[in-house]
């Protein structure tokens, strides 16, 4: 099997803290591999190890068949860390040229590809703007161009959409899907459920340094999420009371901010009952709806916590 990335029982400790706990995974060429998890789940540590910028404490890692810290394979990899990669005193274009030179990209190729990407995102006005003057979202877009311009075989993107508006997010997800069709392998870390679902790749759900489940989006939902989810919005002062009341009638009641997500096999029966019980107890409800389950519900079911917590 043509595995681009292969990890076996990889762990990483930081001063005794286990940031990565026996992680094993394998990614094939052309695959989109999404790592979904809350902040601190270990996504960045995992990506740093695969990109070759961090050494694991134990376990076995191979990327393109060799140790990822070997620079010989780095021309095939392009990594976008979650931190900034731009030099503030350089313009967007100068930053792109700087990294492209390190990858040995020819000037005409660089010009052609950068024009394509600037046009695609519609940000030609940012070409000659100093990086220090760019907003977080704009910096992210330039960093994405830097990552993609070298046309790598393996693209590793750690939270690439942070600070971007929905339109730009969509464009990035579309582009990633397109690159995957062109046989690029993509690793994508996010804590946003929609992104993980829209990319339509294989999803690994991470929590506390472990990959707790892995599979296709529908497969995960089918295995771990209920048929429906009742969402009840209330006010901050009632949320704990509402949660306690509903837990008498259902095991899978989850609180996310001022929202209660109740996993239900029969929402038409359950919803009126829950509303009645809450009203009787004096809990004020602002809205109620029945949703299809998402990967967030898979995460809730498996960890008892929300991704946004």
């Amino acid at each position, binding site marked *: 099997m043509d595995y681009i990335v292969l990890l076996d029982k990889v762990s990483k400790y930081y001063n005794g803290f286990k940031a990565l706990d026996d992680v094993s995974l394998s990614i094939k060429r052309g695959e989109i591999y999404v790592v979904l998890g809350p902040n601190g789940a270990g996504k960045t540590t995992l990506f740093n190890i695969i990109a070759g910028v961090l*050494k694991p404490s134990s376990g076995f890692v191979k990327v393109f068949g060799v140790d990822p810290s070997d*620079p010989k394979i780095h021309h095939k990899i*392009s*990594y976008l*860390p979650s931190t900034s*990669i731009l030099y503030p005193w350089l313009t967007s274009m100068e930053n792109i040229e700087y990294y492209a030179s390190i*990858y*040995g990209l020819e000037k005409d190729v660089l010009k052609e590809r950068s024009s394509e990407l600037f046009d695609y995102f519609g940000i030609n006005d940012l070409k000659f703007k100093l990086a220090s003057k760019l907003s977080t979202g704009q910096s992210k877009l330039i960093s994405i161009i830097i990552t993609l311009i070298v046309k790598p075989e393996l693209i590793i993107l750690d939270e690439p959409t942070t600070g971007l508006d929905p339109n730009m997010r969509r464009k990035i997800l579309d582009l990633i899907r397109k690159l995957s069709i062109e046989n690029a392998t993509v690793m994508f870390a996010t804590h946003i459920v929609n992104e993980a679902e829209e990319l339509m790749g294989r999803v690994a759900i991470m929590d506390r340094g472990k990959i707790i489940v892995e599979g296709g989006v529908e497969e995960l939902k089918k295995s771990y999420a209920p048929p429906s989810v009742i969402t009840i919005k209330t006010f901050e002062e009632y949320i704990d009371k509402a949660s306690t009341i509903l837990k008498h009638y259902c095991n899978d009641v989850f609180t996310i901010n001022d929202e209660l997500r109740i996993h239900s096999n029969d929402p038409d029966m359950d919803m009126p009952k829950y509303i009645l019980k809450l009203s009787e107890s004096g809990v004020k409800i602002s809205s109620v709806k029945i949703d299809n389950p998402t990967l967030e519900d898979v995460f809730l079911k498996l960890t008892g916590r929300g991704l946004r917590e």
Partner: protein
Amino acid sequence: MKLKTIIAFIKCEIKRYYREKILLFWLLIWPLIWILMTAYVFVPPTTTNQFINLNIGVINYDKSNTPFNGTTFIKILREIEYNGTRIFSISEYKTVEEAVQNLKRGILDALIIIPEDFGFEIFNVISSVEIKVYVGAKTPQTKQITETIITSVIRGFSEEISSERVKYILSYIPEEYRYWSKIVLKNLVNPVNMSIGYILPEVFQERSRIIGWYTIGAIGMLFLYTGFSSGSTMIISEKERGTLKKLLSTPLTASEFIIGRMISLMIPMLISTIILILISISPIIGAHITFNPTNPIHILSAIFIVCGALMSISIGAIISMIAKTREGASSMGVILGLLLSFTTGIWFPIEWMPQPIRILAKIFPPAWSIEISRRIIVFEPPYETLLIDTIKIITSTIILLTIAITIYKKTIQKQMEI
């Protein structure tokens, strides 16, 4: 290592200096201010030779009414000139206490006490006169200078008196014995004849050359504080900016990254050196610097300058081992750089330093490169005399570079493990 990558690093670094004004200040404006200070403060336009004016206090106890007495001696002191400038500013005092107070306060450089009957004793061929001199010290350097000047003046005066006395005695000796009597008497009163002469290198005879000498010092200073600072922050600033992770994931090897970055740090320093020299030799400053690119020995001085830059960046790497943050490393680099440029003979002559501090100059390799570059430009010594120094500088550059690369590699390695 690909040239393209080095060029990318250099371009990135130069643009940084161009766009971050504070760096431009340290690299260009500060040395320029220093050179201007050299030209107009340390070596003012009136300077043709090293010149000093001493404040001398005089107490005259002499009441003699002889043709030459205490008053005429004071008049002579007032009129002594060197290169058209009077050496002494004379203030007369009534009491020793008052004059000594002023010596202690640094108002006076020296006090001369003319004894009672000074005039009579001068004319008495069988007696001697004792002039008391107290030397003060406005600065540690002036004590020695004052003592030398006053000793020379009084010795000269004494010789003059002896000569007059010999003439006077000879007038009582019959003509046929005068020739041999003169020789005997002269040798009796002047058992040791001394003449003070100065053989100064050409560089110290002209103001333009003195500024040239200081210009090399300014380059040394620039290397020390910018080299130390940039060398110490090389990895940590990439880390704090977030760019280190990205660079480590690129096809660059750790060695390529380190060497490329070190070269990129060195280039602005060398550009600044060239600009500094150009400004220094411009008519505004008027420094005289001898550099002939066809002269191999001058090329050697340029190589030593490059070695100095590389060594200071390498020492910056050693500083980075102690400093934890970019700000800490940068501050430590600038402070240490300035401190060492003042104490290792780069800016001030090493002879001005106390003996224990002079050891620093002897063990501090960047000071060697500046010292030898200066020697080449000032004295143009023959090749063979530079052989040992060349070996010393090249070897220490290689050793320091190796240490720096090892430290940087270990730092990167550490980053990959934590």
